[in-house]
């Protein structure tokens, strides 16, 4: 994982300039990420091993489960994206003692851009391209979706009731996704805030 800031979003306002911005965007920096893929037939064992080591079982459906140390985000059957701020430098070493014999672990820290979206218009903005029903009766805190917007693959989850969503995008596609996001938010105003977890 590279050191220092590699900011992909410059704080400031785009789109409608008056009133409060309808979309608030923050980049989440300083996160370590890893893919975790259970070996054949070892999914339940891996889930239990994660519970024993981290106090969080791996979610077996499209959900995220975490605590202050680590979050396991479902990424397909038997697969997860692991997020932590606790393992800077070596997330593989962070996970391997508990899960190394049960799953393939691969550092993804630099491969994704992770952003958080909030604001009064966040659902209206996402509805322009994300083909997932984000109405609270259909999608709530902890729910996860793998999908695409503007032909860019998204790993999406809701992190709080406001609502606030966290999206990870493969880094090389992020410019394209940001273009879609800013265009979709223009009518509501889009405010990029200072990054989370920087420095």
């Amino acid at each position: 994982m590279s050191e220092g800031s590699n900011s992909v979003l410059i704080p400031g306002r785009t789109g409608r300039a008056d009133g409060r911005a309808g979309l608030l965007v923050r980049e989440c920096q300083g996160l370590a990420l890893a893919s975790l893929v259970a070996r054949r037939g070892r999914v339940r064992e891996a889930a239990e091993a994660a519970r024993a080591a981290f106090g969080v079982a791996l979610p077996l459906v499209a959900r995220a489960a975490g605590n202050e140390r680590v979050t396991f985000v479902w990424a397909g059957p038997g697969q997860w994206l692991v997020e932590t701020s606790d393992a800077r430098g070596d997330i593989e070493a962070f996970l391997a003692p508990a899960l190394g014999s049960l799953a393939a672990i691969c550092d993804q820290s630099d491969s994704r851009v992770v952003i958080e979206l909030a604001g009064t218009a966040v659902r209206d903005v996402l509805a322009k391209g994300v083909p997932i029903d984000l109405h609270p009766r259909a999608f709530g805190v902890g729910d996860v979706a793998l999908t695409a917007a503007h032909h860019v693959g998204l790993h999406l989850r809701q992190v709080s009731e406001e609502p606030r969503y966290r999206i990870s995008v493969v880094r090389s596609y992020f410019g394209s996704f940001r273009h879609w996001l800013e265009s979709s938010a223009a009518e509501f105003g889009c405010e990029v805030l200072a990054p989370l977890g920087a420095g």
Partner: protein
Amino acid sequence: MRIPCPHCGLRGHEEFAYLGDATLRRPDPAAPDAERAFAEYAYRRDNPAGRHRELWYHAQGCGTWLVVERDTLTHEIGRVTEAREQGGS
């Protein structure tokens, strides 16, 4: 056309990649008629009007290969199962 992925729920077909006939089985390369059997396997396709079993890959979703029953006349989707459950080649 929307496909109910057993892991992700109902999703638009644009999230999926289409492979084709799910009933084909790779021939035995050691069989005496392997050349004819492979030509058949690689190139010859029925073009059924009606129910068809097809392989679809949830490329922009959970990454699962699915066997989807689809009516080629109406695009009605029937049973959807994981390809890995049916085994074979």
